[in-house]
């Protein structure tokens, strides 16, 4: 694989709330190569969005706080950058697609103006050239360029998400963070938007972080995937490895809860129990109260990251480190 574009190491982010400290992201480590796509999968509140905001340096502070870790983007630690330098990176080198296209566009600006805005911010072009580029970009995402003069409320949800994608890609970023880009869309539009993103990603050679809770989306466009649970990465592997051989009981549970089309199933097979209160994460492995294979050690010790096969990491006591050491 090519050189790593982004390398996140031991990243921990917490929110200091009145109810206590919430560890939204804990010891997260992953890396993305040029042109690669990584999927981050997890339930609501698993810390997926916070990871994305952490990379962008946009964690709301207070109450948010990056406790430790390093985020290397092309060899430079983003956490050590000044706000001003970060501003030059945001939208230019790293851009983000937000979850809800209904609210992520400014309702009082025409769409082409909003696309042009990013171009104006990061490239030294005249207003006119920026608008021209913006219209090209709008056309690239499959919307007639004349419609750029319209306001977001005149667009449908799928079209708005296309505009958001146009904004995100207009400066040809090296990394695109997509925070559940298809969650607010219906299934057919989802497929269209995903197809579009995949096409543009290949076209612009952009690396991508795909945040989602849809394993189908992951299978469709990701190269690697990280499964998150209460701020921890429980399993991290290449997509093919993970889908063929899920190791962590939580991952297995996720796959188990997808109904099998070929069998006659009356009920879904969910993971029992609920996610713990983020302020009271259980001792040991956070998944132990819900884990069907929980052992005594799981209630006491937090498992370490173990490389079970090449590039396939799992944090679980079922796979003791000694056995897999080479």
């Amino acid at each position, binding site marked *: 694989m090519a050189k790593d574009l982004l390398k996140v190491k031991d990243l921990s982010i917490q929110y200091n709330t009145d109810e206590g400290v919430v560890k939204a992201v804990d010891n997260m480590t992953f890396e993305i190569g040029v042109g690669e796509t990584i999927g981050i999968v997890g339930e609501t509140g698993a810390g997926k969005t916070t990871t994305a905001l952490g990379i*962008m340096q*946009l964690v709301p502070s207070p109450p948010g706080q990056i406790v430790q870790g390093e985020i290397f983007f092309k060899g430079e630690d983003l956490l050590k950058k000044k706000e001003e330098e*970060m*501003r*030059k*990176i*945001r*939208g*230019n080198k790293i*851009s*983000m697609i*937000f*979850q*809800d296209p209904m*609210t*992520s*566009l*400014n*309702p*009082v*600006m025409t769409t082409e103006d909003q696309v042009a*805005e*990013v171009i104006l*911010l*990061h490239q030294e072009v005249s207003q006119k050239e920026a608008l021209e580029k913006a219209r090209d970009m709008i*056309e690239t995402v*499959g*919307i*007639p*360029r004349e419609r750029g003069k*319209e*306001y977001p*409320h*005149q667009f449908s949800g799928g079209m708005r998400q296309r505009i*958001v994608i146009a*904004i*995100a890609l207009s400066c040809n970023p090296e990394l695109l963070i997509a925070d559940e880009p298809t969650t607010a869309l219906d299934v057919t539009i989802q497929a269209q938007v995903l197809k579009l993103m995949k*096409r543009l990603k*290949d*076209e612009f*050679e952009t690396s991508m972080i795909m945040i989602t809770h849809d*394993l*189908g989306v992951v*299978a*469709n466009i990701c*190269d690697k995937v990280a499964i998150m649970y209460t701020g921890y990465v429980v399993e991290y592997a290449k*997509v*093919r490895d993970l*889908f*063929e*051989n*899920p190791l962590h009981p939580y991952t297995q549970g996720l*796959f188990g809860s*997808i109904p*099998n*089309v*070929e069998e006659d199933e009356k009920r879904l097979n969910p993971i029992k129990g609920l996610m713990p209160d983020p302020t009271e994460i259980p001792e040991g492995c956070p998944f132990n109260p819900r884990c069907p294979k929980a052992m005594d050690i799981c209630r006491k010790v937090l498992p370490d990251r173990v490389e079970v096969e090449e590039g396939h990491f799992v944090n679980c006591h079922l796979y003791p480190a000694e056995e897999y050491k080479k």
Partner: protein
Amino acid sequence: MSPKNENKDLMDRGKKPKAKDLTRDDAVVKNYQSQTEIHSRPGAVEGKDLDVRTIEPPKRKSQWAEVWKRLIKNKAAIAGMIVIVILLLTAIFADFIAPFHYETQDLQNVRMAPNSDNWFGTDNFGRDIFSRVVYGSRISIQVGFIAVGVAMIVGGILGSVSGYYSGRIDNVIMRLMDVLLAIPGILLAIAIAAALGPGLVNVMIAVGIASIPRYARIVRASVLSLRDQEFVEAARAVGANDFRIITKYILPNCMAPIIVQGTLGVAEAILAAAGLSFIGLGIQPPIPEWGAMLSTARIYLRDAWWMSIFPGLAIMFTIFGLNLLGDGLRDALDPRLKG
């Protein structure tokens, strides 16, 4: 999808040619172009018999066109607007409308009752009251709009800064505003006018300062509700700085309440200026200000009613018109408010 039941199509990750490696004639590009063409220009695909007719999309209206449509449905707002338009026209064309100059005295005809020459009668110096009321509209409009403009700009800046940054700055600014609000508006204006001395500019400043806190509060409230919206976060994510976010993303979105407050504020500013002039702290004679005219007329109330009635009516209609328009605007801008 179970792990073993993998979908071949979904998992296919074969190398696809990159767009930049393709020439324009490449089949893939062609295919892609024709796809986008279907999207952009119906019926314009070459060599394909598609039965696609161009359908004119229904004319979509911008937000302000919608507001305008709702506004002109409201009869009261129309009445208010007519009054304001008449007032503005009067102020602009005062030189042509008024039969006399506002300073022209005719000491032979002092305190004449309304007649065919002097439609509104004359005052204690024999000046034509109609002409003075007409010229007075200029002063009132100036005071009203400039005072509100000043208050809006200063209050807007204070409000957006305190709403956007919150924390300590917010506390300091808003407590200062609370102090200003604790003093009754007219009293504050009197104090400022008394300190600065009478005169047109000072009246504007006095009235303007007295109404700053109101705008600061409205803007702050709107900014607070908009600050955490996703599109503001998105703006931050594309690298916009705070100034740009406030001016391009937040303020344009909270114009509605500001406009409404502004329209109603003009009415109050005119009234406050008239009040200040009435007690002698405002505009000084011989400049024809409606409040000052009332003040002079007070002494002659028993035997020259016309001296006070006409400037009084002028004030009343102006305020009435502005209030009707303001209420109409509020209903038009926020249709949910109207039960």
